[in-house]
């Protein structure tokens, strides 16, 4: 007969724990092991960057010529074929150039009835002293209208890419406007103060004399656009927006292009249907002469100036 132990002492013995485990009356983990619900795994940022670096390292290894033989061979063949192709292309094109009609020869096919009429009767038919202007704006007016629309659509694409929402723009305006450029640079402002009016007047001069002297809408518009860019670089967007903001830009652009389109349509349809058009050619050499060329030049100049400025403003801060 064993000695009876008191209950409390018996519970401390291993026999009690063994029989209790055997009968299953107590889960051995409860109270012994700390238990928690599983937490959601949060991958710290360092791990992510680490993994990205590792995967990049693997990729580098794969494309590293010293580690990967197949890649090395492919790369060499690629380079060899590319060089061969380029040399062959250069050779073929050089051969072609050597076979083309010699430059400046009077018997060349280019010197035919087409250029003859442009040069000889261009003045009577278009009224423009500047043959180039006369040619691109009357003989080939449709092409030039297309070309102006290329500029227009290029601005649209840049807007898709870079234009920011008005709200974001306002928030960032103060911060972004002068991030990389000095604020109120005295020298720049001084130079711009002198130059801007001169540039604008020069641009207007080129546009208005497009039919009389070298130049025209495209070149004059580019000059005016660069004047606008100089102004905004020196004085900032806030001052520019007093006379040239998005609203003005839209009105100017749409008016210019629509005017050009209307003049063009009038010209094409009158000509094609054999109706005399009533735009006088004027006296060659006068400022108000050469029929449709002057108004078209003004329209093109306005459009080009707007485009130049819009590119600059969109690239600089994502809005006009």
């Amino acid at each position: 007969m064993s000695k009876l132990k008191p209950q409390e002492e018996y519970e401390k013995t291993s026999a009690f724990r063994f029989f209790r485990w055997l009968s299953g009356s107590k889960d051995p983990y409860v109270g012994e092991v700390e238990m928690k619900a599983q937490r959601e795994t949060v991958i710290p940022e360092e791990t992510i960057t680490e993994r990205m670096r590792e995967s990049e390292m693997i990729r580098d290894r794969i494309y590293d010529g010293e580690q990967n033989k197949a890649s090395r061979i492919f790369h060499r063949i690629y380079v060899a074929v590319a060089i061969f192709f380029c040399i062959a292309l250069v050779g073929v094109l050089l051969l072609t150039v050597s076979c083309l009609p010699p430059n400046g020869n009077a018997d060349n096919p280019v010197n035919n009835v087409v250029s003859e009429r442009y040069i000889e009767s261009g003045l009577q038919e278009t009224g423009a002293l500047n043959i180039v202007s006369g040619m691109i704006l009357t003989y080939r007016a449709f092409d030039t209208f297309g070309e102006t629309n290329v500029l227009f659509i290029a601005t649209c694409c840049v807007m898709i890419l870079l234009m920011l929402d008005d709200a974001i723009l306002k928030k960032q305006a103060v911060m972004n406007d002068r991030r990389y450029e000095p604020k109120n640079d005295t020298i720049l402002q001084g130079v711009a103060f002198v130059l801007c009016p001169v540039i604008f007047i020069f641009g207007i001069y080129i546009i208005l004399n497009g039919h009389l002297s070298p130049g025209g809408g495209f070149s004059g518009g580019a000059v005016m656009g660069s004047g606008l860019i100089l102004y905004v670089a020196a004085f900032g967007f806030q001052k520019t927006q007093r006379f040239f903001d998005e609203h003005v830009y839209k009105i100017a652009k749409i008016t210019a292009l629509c005017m050009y389109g209307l003049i063009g349509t009038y010209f094409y349809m009158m000509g094609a249907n054999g109706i005399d058009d009533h735009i006088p050619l004027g006296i060659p050499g006068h400022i108000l002469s050469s029929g449709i060329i002057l108004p078209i030049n003004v329209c093109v100049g306005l459009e080009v100036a707007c485009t130049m400025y819009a590119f600059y403003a969109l690239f600089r801060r994502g809005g006009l």
Partner: protein
Amino acid sequence: MDFVRNFPCISIMLCLFAGIISSGLRGKAAMLVNTGLLVTNTVLSACTLLYTLSTGASFVYVMGRFPAPWGNEIRAGVLESLIALFFCIIMLLSLFGGRHKLLQGVEEGKLYLYYVLMDLLLSSLLALVYTNDMFTAYVFVEINTISACGLIMIRQNGRTIEAAVRYMIMSLLGSGMLLLGLCMLYDLTGHLLMSNIKESVALIVAEGEYTIPLIVSIVLMSVGLCIKSALFPFHAWLPDAYGYSTVSSAAVLSSLVSKGYIFLLIKIIYRVIGFDIYHDTRIIDILFLFGLMGMIFGSTSAIRENDIRRMIAFSSVAQIGYIYMGFGMGTEAGMTASVFHILSHAATKSLLFIAAVGLTDVSGRNRQFIELTGSGYRNRWAGVAFTVGSLAMVGVPLFSGFISKLLFAQAAVQNHAKMLPALIVLGISTILNAIYFMKTVIRIYTPVEDTPYPSVTFRDRPVYAVVLTAFIVLNVMLGISSQPVVDMIRQGLAMFA
């Protein structure tokens, strides 16, 4: 002069005006302007088509007061007005079909720009179709390229920007080659107008002078346009550009933009160089070879693809291959088949893109095939439309694809040297087409037990369903009553010469 003759000029100018005015409007108004423009242009092109059919001759329209070699000209015949009419209809349907996705994918403030781009794209397509002047063609190729880039990247995420950059680089390479070839041709002939160039080229060939520059300039122009229309070895830009842009853009790009360039190439072959001279340069054999390779490799890439949009995009590579194979036959019949395939592919591919977006929408916007299982039951209109498109692509009778394959086969039989490769590859390509399209059709009609995705009925998207029905009708019409269309194409090609 009949007033109808003004219509081609009016329709091009209307597009340009619509684009310019839309740039000052809000999204909704720009959309209305665009819809009105497309409807008007459809009517104008239909009138031109009827007029040219009734007179039985093409006409030249002088843009301005100065005639042939000095001024610009446009020219309209049966083929030009047929293609223009078709382009307007397809663009109208594509824009309506993808409108709900457009509103989701594009920022509200930039929506009007989308319609500006579309208007100008239409103007450039019409100008490419109607032009009779190589330099006008180049100017409008520029507009076409830039607006296509914009259409790809207007849904702004990383993939579309990357796709747009790729597209721009490849496409500008193509434009550059076209311009280079054009400059050389001008140097040799002294003309920019198509009919005058053709006369001078015939003279040059007869005298035997300048053979090398002439061939090089033809090659440059052909390759440039091949790059822009994604012929097989130059197709690397295509899957991303069609796969990730918003659905209307993908439909318009695949069915219209590349076709515009192909049509320009047809014009160059017939109206600038002359069919016989082009045929004698043997460039046509290279186009034939590239076309055959494209038919096989485009399809195998499509089979490997696990993304439904990219699969459809790769299928375009194969279909462009068919068109160039038709050029490569060097016969009238081959060219007729190619032109018919331009129409049938345009009608089918835009249908497939728009139907596919309906299927992915009811699969939680996942494009993987595993998620698309059973989507044909969840959106029944899109399922039926996708099936019709697939059957047309594979070339099952009653649908448009069958007729184009029949025409290709007939053309191949007439050409003894190229009959065997053409017929064999046509057969292989048809089987490959069937593999990936039927795989998709079976996948979307495999029932699934419990799907987490909701179903869409007619009432949810009435416009979408109507558009799909219109596309199906167009496809079946091309398939059933193909003879009038083929006759018109033959007549139009005869007017080209």
